């Protein structure tokens, strides 16, 4: 993790050169082990106004299984420090669907999270990415993965619990208190442009998605030599692909996509271009439409790939 002075050095020119809006959101992602009150205060001074903590779970067994270095008490202490430093805006990441996790385990994690009063929560289904130690343990049968029926139950019942506690569900895996949607993440889901700085950061500008050089040394060398980032092109999208991309990202939001906005931005009425697909999906009870918006249904959240792939060009 960057030292607070490095963060300061990074943000200083941006704050100085760019006319940032007073509502600007500057988030620092952190592991609970890496923050204490002193550091938080220094980062706050440097310009950070939102923190996102990789808490994942409040149970030691689960944290160990996930290969996390911190302990449940570290999360409590860090959130306490955020409160002391006067940071109101922060997010906690939680993971469900951990092998051998029961509904009560998950509910207890949710309760503990809610007790810490974060304005924003990301709740992710565990993905055992191929090749990771966890995936290997699962393959060896060391742990028993949850079945998809249980995962689905944890998802919907978890959301229900969060909504009962005043959180608004605004993206497949994200909830927040009113007004605390992550402005940064919305850029992705709204298919807006973004510029990624640093090694292996991704940018999306115009119709091109690029990724910077993965090696920090090579990235720095090129920036120092030419003043430009060395990047590879991930995707060059034609008009159809751009529209599809915007639909797929936009439908991740519970508010869905606006037909008018698509007409304005892309000159396309989604209902016209995808009439047959939309009809099928409505019949399957995966999406709903009104005159203005197209949205995924509650049933559709956990089956959203069934919706998305159908929009691919």
């Amino acid at each position: 993790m960057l030292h607070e002075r490095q963060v300061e050095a990074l943000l200083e020119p941006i704050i100085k050169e760019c006319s940032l809006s007073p509502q600007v959101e500057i988030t620092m992602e952190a592991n609970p082990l890496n923050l204490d009150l002193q550091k938080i205060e220094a980062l706050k001074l440097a310009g950070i106004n939102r923190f996102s903590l990789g808490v994942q779970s409040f149970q030691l067994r689960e944290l160990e299984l996930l290969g996390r270095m911190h302990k449940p008490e570290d999360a409590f202490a860090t959130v306490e420090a955020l409160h002391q430093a006067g940071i109101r805006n922060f997010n906690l990441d939680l993971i469900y669907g951990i092998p051998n996790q029961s509904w009560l385990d998950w509910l207890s994690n949710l309760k503990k999270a809610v007790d810490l009063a974060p304005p924003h929560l990301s709740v992710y289904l565990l993905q055992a990415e191929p090749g990771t130690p966890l995936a290997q343990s699962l393959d060896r049968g060391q742990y028993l993965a949850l079945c998809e029926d249980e995962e689905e139950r944890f998802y919907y019942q978890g959301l229900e619990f969060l909504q009962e506690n005043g959180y608004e569900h605004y993206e497949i895996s994200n909830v927040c208190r009113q007004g605390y949607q992550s402005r940064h993440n919305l850029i992705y889901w709204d298919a807006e442009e973004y510029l990624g700085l640093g090694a292996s950061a991704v940018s999306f500008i115009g119709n091109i998605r690029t990724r910077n050089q993965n090696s920090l040394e090579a990235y720095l060398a090129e920036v120092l030599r030419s003043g430009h980032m060395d990047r590879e092109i991930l995707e060059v999208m034609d008009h159809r692909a751009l529209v599809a991309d915007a639909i797929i990202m936009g439908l991740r939001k519970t508010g869905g996509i606006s037909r008018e906005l698509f007409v304005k931005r892309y000159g396309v009425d989604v209902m016209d271009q995808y009439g047959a697909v939309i009809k099928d999906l409505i019949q399957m009870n995966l999406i709903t439409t009104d005159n203005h918006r197209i949205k995924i249904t509650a049933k559709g959240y956990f089956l959203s790939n069934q919706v998305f792939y159908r929009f691919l060009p």
Partner: protein
Amino acid sequence: MQEKIRNFSIIAHIDHGKSTLADRLMQFTGALTEREMRDQYLDKMDLEREKGITIKLQPVRLNYKARDGRDYILNLIDTPGHVDFSYEVSRSLAACEGALLVVDASQGIEAQTLANVYMAMDLNLEIIGVINKIDLPGAEVQKIKEVMENVIGLPEEEIIPISAKLGQGIEEVLEAIVQRVPPPPLAEKGEPMQALIFDSYFDSYRGAISYIRVVAGEIKKGEMIKMMANGKSYEVAEIGVLSPHMTPVESLQAGEVGYLAAGIKNVADIKVGDTITKTINPALKPLPGYKEVKPVVFCGIYPLDNNDFERLREALEKLSLNDASFVFEPENSVALGFGFRCGFLGLLHLEIIRERLEREYGMNLLTTAPSVVFKVVLTNGTEMMVQNPNLWPATAKIDHVLEPYVKASIMVPEDFIGAVMQLCQEKRGDFITMEYLSTDRVIIKYRLPLVEILYDFFDALKSRTRGYASLDYEIIGYFRSELMKVDILLNGEIIDALSFIVHSEKSYHRARGIVAKLRKIIPRQMYEVVIQAAVGSRIIARESIKAMRKDVIAKCYGGDITRKKKLLEKQKEGKKKMKQIGNVEVPRDAFISVLELDNE
């Protein structure tokens, strides 16, 4: 002229080294230059190379200067080595005066080979026994010589031991052909021209090309010829010999072997076994032995995407240009839409056609389970030939049913007699006879329903005899049987393409097996899927697939959009291998994989 011609073929079991020997003969006689020499020149198609089998025969002309100092023309007519193509073998043999019987020195003679040797003997061919692979450690040359003498009656001392791989004994084989195979019979002046078609293929420039053996008279470029089976006439555009490349000649005389092009659009017009004559001074009778080859195995072939129907028709038409024994006609399935019912000589033939459609024509296909042709006698006395289970009449209308049977000959070491008999009993077989071929090898004959040996019989036979058994069979006719139709239902709808005909005693077991198999191969869907098997309205098996509950990318931010979209694209690609039937997506392989039940 004639006394210098020798027409011969090679009879051998798969893997006994026929192609290698053919290559050596070509190399020795200089038909191929060293540069052209590549292993197994005669097997042209990729598929043949991959499966190590010869499907199509291709004649080759070899010029050989014998030890007597004279030049001979040796026409080698290769033969396919699979029971599906035994008629083609018989016509190739009919174009020859002699045959090399090639037997592997460690494997011994196999059932299929034996059947072909008997065929050659019936056609009065001179048989030259050759034992190949004598260089291998397991070679038992003397023992195999004895068996060849006992079973086929070839004098031991005339059998030639060779190693085609090492090129040993090749000249002895060539000399034996020259000395022992009789030259073609002398042509009589003025006799009407007759030529036997022993193979054909389609060339996109010259049209249908036939491989012929001129039996009587002479045929020249520019002459008018007539096909005796259908009476159609054509002008000879080109004739030539294969040495082994196509080399045009002015004329072919009685006894000679070559090719003929006459602007013929369709190979169906040059049927294997047919006789070509001239329109002027035509022959009165065709050469003996011609028969219409009837397909015995049928299945439905459907484009996965219904829009590809016309493309599939074109591909089938093109393939049938090259293969007159394969037939197709349009059919319609409620589940699968428009497709074709196709008839084949056997399962290998089916598999070859299917693979060629996919490889050469880029078709994305769905194949239904193969079936034989059943004969249904109705209560009103009329007979129906049913090649599609969906055309099976209602039970009340059926008086009785007959199914095709084969006589199977299985050669096996005596240790496995029990295993073979048990398998044949399981497959509804009736024992006919058993004979000892040598002290430890027997030939067992059974009468078996064709449908029982179609699917997994050969694999089961091989596995239960540790690979030692060999099988040959011939269709012997229709016999009465207790058969019934079983329907498969998905969410209450009969999926016509999955219906099958089965013996009543096996219906329950098979229905349960298929339903269980479908449960395994149909992925979870948006809705619960109920799979049932029914005889008439009676459900005899049931399984269900719970609805899909999860299909989600939990995390999707700026850095991984591209990768996540690739996952979705993969998913979309996977859908292309599915067939939407009602509201159920069925993997295309479901329709054929239900055959593989007994292997599990």
